[in-house]
């Protein structure tokens, strides 16, 4: 039976809770909570992507588009129309869900490379819209002046406050997704991954389940986009381009697609590599990414999350 043990989850989130306090006392990592906000935002997207790709076996190269739809929904509605940020967040998620339904219904009938191409094309279209609708989105210059978040008069105005807000969302999404994985829905998704023929012979409505997880992934990405916009108070199209979609894919490939932990590990690693550890390489960063991805796929097909399984295997022999 697929059981995701609770202890590592508890330990992980305990560390997350204590981390800002630890970071405060070690000057060398004093700015890490800021990076962790970004890692958390990426985690939200990769958790959805992992369910879609790792469990249901459907590739998507347009998660950055939903990420952008969320960010721009929040940006445009708050800056241009002065609406409540939380409401904008929900509206963004609603728009993303609707778009995912409209895009997913025809394209999820495609398989493998074709699905990859269809989602890639959609991602590019959305990116072009962000760039060209200058009056609405500010075009390539981006949008500034997006307000921060507050709840009942409590302002999320410091890094640490925002850190806890983002990680609360990650925690909720993580638990929700784990519940899905360990249920009838999760079994149906894994069944689709393994054999669509047999799954439909068991009464699993394949297209319905594919669309549901696609929408779920889009909603999480949209939420991540809104959180990003309110954190930086500034957005521009390049944050949501094709390379970001690919980077998200690299995250779950690196972390391990077939385990939900892979989404978290991958998001962390890539965030820290790209914002911190790989600065040294400058323009050559992309080559290092490629190298890492190559090594992982060759030597660790189950990603970094697969390492405990390998070690367990050694002990058993």
């Amino acid at each position, binding site marked *: 039976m697929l059981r995701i043990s609770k202890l590592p989850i508890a330990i992980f989130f305990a560390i997350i809770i204590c981390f800002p306090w630890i970071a405060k006392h070690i000057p060398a990592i004093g700015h890490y909570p800021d990076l962790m906000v970004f890692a958390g935002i990426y985690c939200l997207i990769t958790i959805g992507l992992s369910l879609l790709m790792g469990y249901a076996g459907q590739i998507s190269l347009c998660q950055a588009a939903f990420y952008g739809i969320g960010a721009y929904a929040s940006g445009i509605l708050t800056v241009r129309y002065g609406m409540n940020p939380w409401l904008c967040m929900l509206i963004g998620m609603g728009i993303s869900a609707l778009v995912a339904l409209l895009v997913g219904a025809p394209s999820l009938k495609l398989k493998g490379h074709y699905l990859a191409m269809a989602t890639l094309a959609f991602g590019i279209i959305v990116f072009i819209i962000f760039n060209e609708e200058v009056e609405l989105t500010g075009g390539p210059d981006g949008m500034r002046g997006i307000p921060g978040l507050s709840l009942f008069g409590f302002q999320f105005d410091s890094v640490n406050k925002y850190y806890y807000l983002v990680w609360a969302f990650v925690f909720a999404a993580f638990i929700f997704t784990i519940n899905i994985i360990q249920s*009838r829905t999760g079994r149906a998704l894994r069944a689709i991954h393994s054999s669509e023929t047999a799954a439909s012979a068991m*009464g*699993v409505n394949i297209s319905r389940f594919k669309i549901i997880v696609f929408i779920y992934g889009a909603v999480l990405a949209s939420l991540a986009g809104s959180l990003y916009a309110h954190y930086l108070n500034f957005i521009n199209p390049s944050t949501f381009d094709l390379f970001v979609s690919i980077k998200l894919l690299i995250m779950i490939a690196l972390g391990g697609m077939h385990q939900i932990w892979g989404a978290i590990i991958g998001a962390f690693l890539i965030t820290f590599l790209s914002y911190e550890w790989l600065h040294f390489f400058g323009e050559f960063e992309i080559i290092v990414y490629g190298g890492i991805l190559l090594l992982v796929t060759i030597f660790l097909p189950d990603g970094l999350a697969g390492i405990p399984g390998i070690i367990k295997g050694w002990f058993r022999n």
Partner: protein
Amino acid sequence: MVQELKFQVRESLEKNILEVEQVAMAFGGLMALINQNFRVKKGIIKAIIGPNGAGKTTLFNVITGFFPPTEGTIRFKGQAIEHLKAHDIASRGLSRTFQTVELFDNMTVLENVMVGCHTRIRSSFLATGFKLPQVKRKENKIKEKAMDILEFINLKDKFNEPADSLPLGEQKLLEIGRGLATQPDLLCLDEPVAGLNETETQVASSLIRLIREKGITVLLVEHDMKVVMDLSDEIMVLNYGEKIAEGPPEQVQNDPKVIEAYLGGED
């Protein structure tokens, strides 16, 4: 007159679980099935036999909704199903196994059977994500039911093993068990004993008999003639997509057309 017709319809409903009328299936210019007309009586084991390429598996795929037929009507429990998708047909109580084992090999034995329970116990995406108490209850019920089925097919001890680690004989049984988990009224078995040794074949045969005793109608495609003769109440013979004989085993066995199809004509 109308009364009489109604009576006839009701009678045929009570007697026949599946009615296939003038079904044809063409792949491009190739006629894989030609003018198929037959009925499957409730509660029996009916075998479909014929040389390789006769259209047996195609017939299964048409009945279970994997290929919509080019022409004709298929009625299951009195309702037309030829326009329905495979998963709809499965949820109405028509289940199947596959010629080449199609287990979910990324799952355990128990989980495979639990997928079979998919249509019987439902819960929504949101309810599942928030893990409402009713979801947990339903999940336990599914597990219990799946365990009962594993006991029935004698695989209870191996419930936690990966499905692809089982020997072929047990994989075939597991596929039948997974089919049973959908609570079918009609179970279509595509070569359930192909590739099995003698002992495994006997185990599978007696299981199929037990399934009939439970009141589930069985439609069987099989090449092992000993098994077919032994199990079937009725046999239908296909050749080049056409039905060439139908009836009780003894009758079919001695049909000159059937002998010709299997041994080749003399002209």
